[in-house]
């Protein structure tokens, strides 16, 4: 029996009445079938053309299908990287034999050539947009490699985070000019690398990164409509917050970093609910909702173990000694509350509502904030308190997982459903292992554990099928 390849995850007609671009597999299948039908006299040439006309076959639409574009970028990038790495290795390995000016000249020539040909192919002539983009990306990498190579030629051992900063700052205008997401992601990674190395070397947090992320990187991600770039910025800020906090906010009480992460995740989720009130902000709204929810669920999982609560409780008992830390927590709480309140009030002015999903998310924000306050009010320093806290966070874990599934179903979005079901299954299996499994004979424990996994897989699959069916029906 042959199966018809799926044209894509969703098939609602695109604006203008056409359906979205078909996958390569579906297009090949349809071409074969249409040819056979025309030969059999079932459809005419005009009808075949009309059927193809149902689909958006533009290059831009094909790009949105993702895979072919990604493949071209990966091939181009890998090829460019191999060439670039080979050049640098050759220069580095034979540096004694090559005169210094010639070495510097080679670095300049290769960097300039990658940029020039990348721009010509991808942005001026536009004959090979993906290869061009990959070559420009290679140029940006060669520029950074050039900084290290010249530092090596002259045996420079000065403050090396400045080298990373020079790299990131030099590359920053390129994604601004070319509106390239891969280059913006590279720039975000470089600035994050800079703040990491700066903090590691100086043992002080790097407040300048906050300004760079909020005033430059996030607006650029917004301008380019890139959810992935925005996700990188959110992750970079989390890294800055955690790594910086460990260096200057909490000293050796590193457990205090986790409530900081938790409140950051809550603030991100709250910001997501605010964006639900703006037309056109949908992709960013879901990026923030997913990242915030994933962060909360992950931390709730960590907090759901009584032993972890006990350890955390000891550090929390010393939280009062860290004034700056408490101030940062307060800022995050205030931000989360303000964002959630704005999300509730804004629909009156914007006319766009996040619906029940956004309302549930605001409830989640309030609940997690309240439980975080409880965490500080009654830290699990003794066994009873740690057990009570662990039970509360188990409720957050299971409730949050189910909540994500419900929100995803309401909004007809796969990602929250998958995330919620996965978190629920992992949490259930963990609790089974650390509670029931020890009380049962080994054979029975395996049978019950296996049964639990099978049941989880069955429920997972059923929920996924329901969601896919519902989305298809909406699209039909």
């Amino acid at each position, binding site marked *: 029996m042959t199966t018809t390849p799926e044209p894509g995850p969703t098939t609602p007609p695109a604006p203008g009445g056409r359906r979205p671009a078909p996958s390569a597999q579906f297009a090949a299948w349809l071409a074969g079938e249409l040819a056979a039908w025309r030969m059999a006299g079932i459809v005419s040439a005009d009808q075949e053309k009309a059927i193809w006309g149902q689909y958006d076959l533009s290059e831009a639409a094909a790009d949105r299908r993702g895979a072919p574009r990604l493949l071209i970028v990966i091939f181009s990038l890998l090829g460019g990287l191999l060439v670039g790495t080979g050049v640098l290795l050759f220069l580095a390995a034979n540096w004694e034999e090559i005169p210094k*000016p010639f070495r510097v000249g080679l670095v300049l020539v290769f960097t300039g050539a990658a940029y020039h040909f990348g721009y010509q192919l991808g942005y001026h002539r536009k004959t090979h947009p993906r290869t061009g983009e990959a070559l420009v990306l290679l*140029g940006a990498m060669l520029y950074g490699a050039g900084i290290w190579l*010249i530092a090596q030629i*002259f045996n420079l*051992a000065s403050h090396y985070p400045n080298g990373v900063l020079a790299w990131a700052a030099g*590359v920053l*205008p*390129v994604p601004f000019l070319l509106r390239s997401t891969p280059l913006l992601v590279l720039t975000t990674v470089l600035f994050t690398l800079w703040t990491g190395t700066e903090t590691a070397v100086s043992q002080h947090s790097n407040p300048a990164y906050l300004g760079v992320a909020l005033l430059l990187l996030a607006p650029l991600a917004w301008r380019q409509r890139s959810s992935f770039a925005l996700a990188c910025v959110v992750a970079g800020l989390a890294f800055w917050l955690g790594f910086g906090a460990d260096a200057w906010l909490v000293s050796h009480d590193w457990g205090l970093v986790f409530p900081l992460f938790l409140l950051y995740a809550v603030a991100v989720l709250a910001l997501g609910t605010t964006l639900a009130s703006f037309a056109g902000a949908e992709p960013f709204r879901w990026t923030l909702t997913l990242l915030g929810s994933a962060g909360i669920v992950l931390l709730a999982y960590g907090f759901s173990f009584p032993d972890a609560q006990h350890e955390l409780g000891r550090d929390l008992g010393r939280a009062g000694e860290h004034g700056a830390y408490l101030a940062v927590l307060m800022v995050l709480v205030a931000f989360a509350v303000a964002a959630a309140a704005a999300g509730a009030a804004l629909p009156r002015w914007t006319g766009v509502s996040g619906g029940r999903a956004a309302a549930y998310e605001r409830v989640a924000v309030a609940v997690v904030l309240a439980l975080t306050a409880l965490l500080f009010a009654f830290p699990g320093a003794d066994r009873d308190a740690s057990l009570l806290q662990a039970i509360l966070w188990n409720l957050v874990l299971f409730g949050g997982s189910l909540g994500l599934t419900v929100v995803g179903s309401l909004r007809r979005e796969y990602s929250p459903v998958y995330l919620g079901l996965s978190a629920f299954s992992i949490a259930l299996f963990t609790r089974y292992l650390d509670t029931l499994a020890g009380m049962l004979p080994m054979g029975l424990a395996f049978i019950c554990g296996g049964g639990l996994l099978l049941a989880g897989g069955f429920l997972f699959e059923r929920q996924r099928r329901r969601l896919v069916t519902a989305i298809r029906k909406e699209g039909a």
Partner: protein
Amino acid sequence: MNTRVGFYAVVALQLGFLASMGIVKQYERVTGEKVVLEVVPVDPRDFFRGDYVVLGYNLSRLERGPAGLTGAPVDAGQTLFVTLEREAGDRTKVKAAGASLSPPARGTLFLRGRVTTVTDERVGVEYGIEQYFVPERRGREIEVAARERRVTVEVSITAAGDGQVCRLLVDGRTWGK
């Protein structure tokens, strides 16, 4: 702004930055005052790391206390100006003569460094001349020579106190030639 003009302007700035790095360092190397510093053995585990060797000097660890070079309180991260004086026997060699948190008078030979560690007895300082890149698998021989105190380094020092390693010398002869 025209995208093409903007793009090529950014590329020109990047290439200009790379070129200026090379030109400035080469200029400093040629015009700076040349001195020779004796390399002292450092922790062997850290000495040879990948493609470069880690160089330690007597200047890297300054004594504290009333009779020492850094009687004034210093903290890690501060910039320290270490005044140098030429040795009586060999005028190319130098040793530390003093240290201060402000730049010495014009015409004084000094190195500008950053305080890395502070203990009751000593102050650790880095001058940016602690690395020397070598071809692969050549670092061990320098490590052995440094343990035997046979390694010196020619450093070029600018008027602002910035040092740059010019040559590595083993038994007084340029290494790697």
